[in-house]
């Protein structure tokens, strides 16, 4: 979600667990929950996060929207837990 703790490799497994809990929460009512968002844009605290905002990947790949990242089982992703 918003904070990053990148040096310790445990970071990835910690965040995967947070994402898994999010995935589980979404799965209980996917129709209304998969695309639900709220809160501020962590890169620009004066703006709300929106589904159509593009994610900065530092030029490593083409940018995709927030909406494209919210379903792990469709679109650019294909994974479960």
């Amino acid at each position, binding site marked *: 979600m918003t904070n990053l703790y990148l040096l310790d490799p445990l970071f990835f497994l910690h965040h995967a667990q947070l994402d898994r809990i*999010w995935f589980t929460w979404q799965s209980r009512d996917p129709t209304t929950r998969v695309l639900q968002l709220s809160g501020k844009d962590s890169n620009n605290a004066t703006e709300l996060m929106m589904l159509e905002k593009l994610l900065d990947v530092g030029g490593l790949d083409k940018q995709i929207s927030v909406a494209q990242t919210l379903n792990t089982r469709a679109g650019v992703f294909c994974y479960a837990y």
Partner: protein
Amino acid sequence: MKWKNTNNRDRYWDWSLDSANIEESPLFDAYYGFGSNGNSTASSSVAFGHCVTDGPFAMLQALYFGAEAKRHCLSRGFISKEEARSKSHLYNSEAIHGYLKEPDFDSFYRMLEFGAHNAIPSTIRGDFFMVTAPYGLCKNNLLYG
């Protein structure tokens, strides 16, 4: 700890299974895991920790702490067992069941962020403790620099 490693299954650390004594989690095993707590007889390092001196990342060198250029060894510094127990209600299985009952995204993410998300880094400390975006801000350093 539970590994999920079949095709198209993401891997994760289910800390709720370790909430009774997180420092004893197999995740911190020196051989099978990511190495243990910082070594109090080794040099001190960032955020209340000492250098990790066992496991696959022993003495891993980092160039930054947060956005600050600061060469240091991979640091961990667990809070005491008593302090850790006082935070475990934020990430045990009851906590997760509670988070999953939240009715909308706003309440769900607030509970999860201020609960489990922060409890783990503030228990392990060291490099995990930094709460501002570190390497993401450093354009020339991808992940581990």
